[in-house]
């Protein structure tokens, strides 16, 4: 505890039992926090106890505590089925691809933004490319539908005939196309936003470095190679590492809404989050979904801790804690 170090150090301390906190004076600060603490309790802490339901035969009518205990049966069912493998694989692989491609493209775009001198153009580019980040996945699903609709979609009706393809492609029932579609849509929504994050990091580089390099006759590309990259890349790698801790959590909106929750696409579009949700709404197995949710919470927690530990060893500044 670092409360008032100067004061306590100045005291000769004849009595060891000094009150640790000055409640009389500072209780208003505690009172202020009551609404927030209540909300955190209800919204975050109560549900944590709810993970016990993974060990029960869930019955919403009876409630959590009245449902019967079944031990690890829900987990046994989940891992005995192929589903656990598919949703884990999909969640991790998509996140890895999104992370690598997203970081690389965002960073390239950030470097390009850094080359724009004209303030008005710079602001316009930033505003336009961050717009996809602003709209909801529901709207995105309509935009994607306008391209992929089997009957009227722009691709089936305009692009395929141009390429000489006669037959329609049934996009929403063909799993094999979705890894590409989802990656493209994810990049579309995120690259602009990410580039602005990295652009902020580029702005932090002291201009004097560039001035000095210029005096030495370095070209712009050399400046980027020898000044910008060495300074910024370690930061970016750390940021990417931290995102790695979230690899067990998928973007629900992308995988549920953009795919229109089409069951036929399960093998390439189901992730842990959509699986849990479908269990909750009744189109899946509730017991197994609850088990999947707990599996996600626990493995996700371990991953965040591990990644943070690794980042912290390399670079304290950028670690979360």
């Amino acid at each position: 505890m670092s409360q008032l170090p100067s004061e306590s150090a100045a005291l000769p301390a004849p009595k060891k039992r000094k009150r640790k906190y000055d409640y009389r004076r500072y209780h208003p600060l505690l009172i202020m926090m009551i609404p927030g603490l209540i909300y955190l309790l209800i919204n975050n802490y109560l549900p944590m106890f709810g993970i016990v339901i993974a060990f029960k035969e869930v019955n919403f009518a009876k409630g959590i505590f009245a449902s019967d205990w079944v031990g690890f049966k829900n987990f046994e069912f989940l891992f005995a089925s192929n589903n656990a493998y598919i949703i884990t694989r999909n969640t991790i692989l998509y996140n890895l691809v999104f992370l690598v491609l997203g970081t690389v493209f965002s960073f390239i775009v950030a470097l390009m933004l850094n080359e724009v001198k004209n303030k008005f153009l710079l602001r316009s580019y930033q505003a336009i490319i961050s717009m996809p980040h602003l709209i909801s996945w529901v709207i995105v699903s309509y935009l994607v539908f306008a391209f992929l609709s089997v009957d009227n979609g722009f691709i089936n009706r305009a692009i395929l005939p141009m390429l000489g393809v006669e037959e329609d492609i049934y996009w929403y029932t063909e799993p094999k196309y979705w890894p590409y579609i989802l990656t493209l849509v994810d990049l579309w929504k995120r690259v602009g936003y990410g580039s602005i994050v990295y652009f902020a990091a580029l702005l932090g580089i002291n201009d004097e470095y560039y001035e000095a390099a210029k005096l030495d006759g370095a070209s712009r590309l050399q400046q980027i190679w020898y000044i910008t990259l060495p300074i910024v890349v370690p930061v970016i790698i750390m940021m990417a590492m931290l995102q790695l801790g979230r690899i067990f959590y998928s973007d629900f909106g992308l995988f549920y809404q953009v795919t229109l929750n089409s069951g036929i696409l399960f093998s390439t579009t189901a992730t842990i989050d959509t699986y849990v949700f479908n269990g909750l709404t009744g189109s899946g197995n509730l017991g197994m979904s609850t088990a999947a949710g707990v599996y996600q919470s626990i493995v996700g927690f371990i991953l965040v801790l591990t990644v943070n530990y690794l980042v912290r060893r390399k670079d304290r500044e950028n670690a979360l804690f």
Partner: protein
Amino acid sequence: MKHESPVLTWVSHISLIALSAACIIPFILLISASLTDQNAIIRQGYSFWPQEFSTAAYDYLFARGTDILRAYGVTVFVTVFGTTLGLIITLLMAYPLARAETPHRTLILFLVFFSMLFHGGMIPSYLVYAKYLGLKNTIWALIFAGVLTNGYYIMMMRVFLQGSMSKDLIESAQIDGASEYRILWSIIIPTSTPILAVIGLFTAIWYWNDWQTGMIYITNPKLYSIQNMLQRIMQDIQFIQSNLQANSNSAMAQMPRDTVKMAIAVIGSLPILLAYPFFQKYFIKGIMFGAVKG
């Protein structure tokens, strides 16, 4: 004066223009499709320019305007109320955590922090809100099960306050006999407008765009937000015919289903896109602020 390679500048401009185009083009397809005659769509599909211009889809939807307006009413209420309440709670949480004198500060910081690391998940949350608090099919579910506040916002605001508040000013106010509430109101809040604006904007966008909460907790179409209505219509176009009542007889005409689908998406996204130029500056500042230290 660090720019000196014209080739690099041109490559950047061309790429950025291409990227900007890629961000806008899908919206053009959507708008064009919504303004095309239904029969032309059946002949040629959605295209970037209406072959046969028609506002039939909008006429059809405007005749059912009351339900769409009510959905917007839900969205606006949830956004305004949720953002205001959320900002108050976040500030009241972050400010004491920024002050060194707060009793049990370390413990409470840990509680906030741990809430960011470990989640109970969707199903336990559902049980808490729906079964124990009875919020299912109420507008409060949209607000409280949404993102009223979270550890990330609290930490972000705390970092800002630690940097911006002046210890001397607080001490002199205490000597003058100001209460802690008075100090918060008269000294802290006026100097915190940038962070309040950033977190307020992000909370508001979150509430405006939220459809997942509604999908979990709301089954009554009268309580649908606009995003929920869009989500339902995407899954089931018949929802319009069975749930949105027409106000006049002329609108009993057959639904131009393929164009209506596009028109409702335009109606659903237009307000935020029209408002965007006015707040884009803060949106981009907010993204940058979050990047500098989360």
